[in-house]
């Protein structure tokens, strides 16, 4: 998370017609404070997360006084959510009635692909972005999907070892379609090109599938195989046939080890089915 946490009230004081909470997220336990009200709230276009829980002070909820609503790309919230800084949650010590945003998606910062070999593999994890917009006046329309997102890497910093490679872990929470396009123009064969769909777990498992402490589930989208020089690999992963995943893990390696140049890997993600 950005520190200090961005204050939505600064944007309102500056005259903005809406506030925006935009930050990178470093862990599942992060909770963000929103100190301004809004007439409607939705995931922002850059959000990697697909499910955000918004909690607010609601005196009509017994005991906890905590109301909650979940934002998804398909369900923006069209109602007023207001912090109550003039009063407090019934806690000891009391906490001001601020609006809280937290992750509803599972997100494991300690994820390692199963079979990860420290001596042969690099790990490149894209830190997911939390993006929420709160409008001060009813917007003409509420967006019902996030912006499409493209990740592109042309240079792959593989480990210098025989068959040394690199894993890319890309956030894909609730994305409904993914397309993986690899053009090998490197002058050599790319070895063990592999794509997995990953669903993070919050459950600690004494016998995890992967080397990480949690039992993250992996599904094979593309089994490991070689990509000859001068060829293109296109893999489509619609949710209807391949499933929905929290992230995609992509591996590629070089025969001799070391960096791979001129092999653009493009991953295209969209909320459209």
């Amino acid at each position: 998370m950005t520190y200090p946490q961005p204050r939505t009230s600064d944007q309102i004081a500056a005259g903005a017609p809406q506030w925006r909470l935009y930050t990178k997220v470093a862990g599942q336990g992060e909770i963000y404070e929103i100190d301004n009200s809004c007439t409607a709230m939705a995931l922002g276009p850059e959000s990697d997360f697909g499910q955000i829980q918004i909690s607010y002070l609601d005196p009509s909820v017994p005991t906890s006084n905590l109301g909650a609503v979940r934002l998804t790309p398909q369900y923006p919230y069209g109602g007023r959510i207001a912090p109550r800084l003039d009063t407090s949650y019934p806690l000891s010590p009391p906490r001001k009635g601020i609006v809280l945003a937290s992750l509803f998606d599972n997100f494991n910062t300690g994820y390692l692909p199963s079979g990860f070999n420290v001596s042969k593999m690099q790990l490149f994890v894209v830190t997911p972005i939390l993006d929420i917009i709160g409008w001060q006046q009813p917007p003409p329309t509420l967006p019902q999907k996030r912006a499409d997102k493209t990740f592109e890497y042309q240079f792959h910093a593989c480990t210098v070892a025989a068959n040394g490679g690199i894993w890319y872990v890309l956030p894909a929470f609730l994305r409904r379609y993914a397309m993986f396009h690899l053009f090998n123009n490197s002058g050599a064969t790319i070895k063990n090109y592999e794509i997995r769909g990953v669903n993070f777990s919050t459950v600690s498992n004494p016998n995890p599938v992967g080397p990480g402490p949690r039992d993250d589930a992996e599904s094979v989208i593309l089994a490991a195989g070689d990509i000859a020089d001068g060829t293109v690999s296109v893999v489509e992963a619609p949710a209807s046939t391949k499933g929905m995943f929290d992230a995609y893990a992509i591996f590629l390696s070089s025969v001799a080890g070391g960096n791979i140049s001129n092999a653009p890997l493009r991953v295209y993600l969209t909320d459209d089915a």
Partner: protein
Amino acid sequence: MTNIRGRRPLPNPNSQTLSRAVPTFPAPSSAGPGDVFNLTEPKTFITRPGAIVQLISAQQPWAKVTLTLETAGPVEVSSSSNWTFLNGQGQSLITNVPMDFTIAKGNNLYLQAGSAERVRFTLSPFPWLEIITQVLRGGFSSLATAVSALASAVRGK
């Protein structure tokens, strides 16, 4: 019978109203700190959560206050300095809807919000209302003086 010779004549209660002299009105109060008599004051302010803010004090003359909530709210106003927020004791502002309040001299207007909200505030003075009220007050005063004198005379009879 009572001999009335030598007594002073009774004062004419209409003497002032029959005066042909041009009436004099009290001049409007001069502009000074906090005086809005001759000023239209537009501004936008950010509310402070949980604080009751005084918008108009009782010392200020008649004025029309227009409040427009630019943010989502809730923001409430009240003429009392002590009310429970969102408990039906104040009046809520509506986003993007200008709300006018005509504030007579001697009244207050307070505002309260639960978070930092942006409120557009326009203060428009009513100079003629002050003059009217002062003239009325002056007229009533003259009338009261006359009635009082008449009553004194009757009692002394």
